[in-house]
């Protein structure tokens, strides 16, 4: 089940969770853009740090750390490749090191902002945001219903696995190909049951007037609150500053800075 745990959104109330997902998404995009336009270490460090208050305010430190750890492997690959390539291209040790750290940090900033978004946005809100940005309703419905059935299917997969194991199926036996084949007796019942489930769902949807009108209403509506304006201002502020610095301020490397001090 542990694989699916990350997909279970934990319902928490915090100022960050209550923000409009559309605005939050614009914020994430802005951070994304800034992370791309800088390749120097110092601004990327700043970018990393200014997002930490969001994590603290949202109260999702544990989940956030877990998702960061999830990215650690890729981050280390990025670090090693960049370092090796730069070093053998004849740049100095210190410079290669700084360059590799900067590019790794850029990756980490991207994960950081995306995980803040997904950890603090309920799937319900996300579906609603999709709907209100003009996505066809069928698509949004498919999205939220898929999320709703993740825990159900995960539980079912576990049950089928236990049942097949009880009949002598050995999952961790044999070479790579054999192991994949071992999963067929689990996949087939799972698929059959999913199909039956989807038929029953369709029946229940029809019985609740699915498709009665093109002008569907929604119980919830996203409204921009004071905090959302606040986030817009912050986003514009950060973006404007970043672009200004990029265009007009020469950024020293950490190496130069350290040399200057000593």
């Amino acid at each position, binding site marked *: 089940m542990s694989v699916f745990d990350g997909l279970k959104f934990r319902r928490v109330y915090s100022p960050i969770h209550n923000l409009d997902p559309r605005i939050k998404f614009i914020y994430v995009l802005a951070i994304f853009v800034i992370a791309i336009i800088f390749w120097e270490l110092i601004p990327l460090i700043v970018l990393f740090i200014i997002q930490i208050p969001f994590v603290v305010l949202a109260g999702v430190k544990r989940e956030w750390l877990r998702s960061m750890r999830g990215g650690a492997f890729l981050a280390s690959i990025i670090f090693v490749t960049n370092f090796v390539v730069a070093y053998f291209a004849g740049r100095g040790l210190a410079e290669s090191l700084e360059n590799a750290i900067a590019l790794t940090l850029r990756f980490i900033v991207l994960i950081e902002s995306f995980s803040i978004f997904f950890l603090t946005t309920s799937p319900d809100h996300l579906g609603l945001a999709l709907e209100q940005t003009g996505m066809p309703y069928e698509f949004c419905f498919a999205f939220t219903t898929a999320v709703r059935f993740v825990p*159900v299917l995960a539980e079912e997969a576990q049950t089928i696995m236990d049942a097949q194991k009880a009949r002598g199926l050995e999952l961790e036996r044999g070479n790579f190909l054999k192991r994949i084949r071992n999963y067929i007796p689990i996949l087939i019942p799972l698929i059959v049951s999913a199909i039956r489930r989807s038929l029953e769902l369709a029946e229940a949807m*029809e*019985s609740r007037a699915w498709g009665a009108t093109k002008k569907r209403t929604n119980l919830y509506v996203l409204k921009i609150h004071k905090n959302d304006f606040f986030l817009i201002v912050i986003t514009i502020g950060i973006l404007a500053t970043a672009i200004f610095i990029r265009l007009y301020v020469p950024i020293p490397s950490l190496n130069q800075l350290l040399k200057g001090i000593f």
Partner: protein
Amino acid sequence: MPVIETKNLTYTYPGGTKPSISDVSIKIKKGEFALITGPSGCGKTTLCRCFNGLIPHFYQGELKGEIKVTGLNILENPIYEMAKHVGLVFQNPENQLFALSVEKDVAFGLENLGVPREEIRKRVNWTLNLTGIYDLRERAPHELSGGQQQRVAIASILAMQPEVMVLDEPTSFLDPLSAKKIFKVIYELNKKLGITVVLVEHRLDLTARYADHIIVMDDGKVVLDGEPREILSSEEARLIGIGIPKATRLYHILKKDGVKLSNTVPLSSDEMANLLKEALKVHD
């Protein structure tokens, strides 16, 4: 005018060789609590699907005979039109909930109908209170027990304020205690709001007491149709093998053995207990 009326209704699923229901002619009156029972595979679910037009609109196949529900001809009205008048609650509660929270699920039907938001909010709260799940309104379906899920399913139909509610074995996935509670909820909707109830059920021990009308099916046909006390006392009912309430069986066994009991056939243990107390008093 009956709320549900069928005449010689016969239906074959696409690709089916023989009809799943044949020659079904029934009438269910307004405000009635009707119970449909019969062995597995006898066509109860198939009949329910006809009540809101899932058959033939969703299932296709061949439908013969006449069927009118709340005065509307099923063939001439799409399912979403029928859904305003007839609500269907299915067997498996898990597969009738789509949303990520209870209140969103209860709102689903009204949203589809394009009811204004304030009105939806009002009706959702009303329904949640009526079915006793107001405190669960923000929970996700997978955080609920089967009994709670089935309550949500009932609430989500109730919110659309149908005239008829059809429930197809709503408790077969539930334990006896949850089942009992669900039946209570259904009975109250019938008595307090005057909603016509059609309940498909095997557990007559728990439900016969509420019924005004029992329909027994076997092999796609209606074999018995009438007043519960009469039907459940009949020899035919026993032979078909429907779950006659133990109190009713006991009454007939005692009566046959010559015990003097009053003439009202009991349908529940409570009624039987009262009957026995009375009989014992006479003997004193």
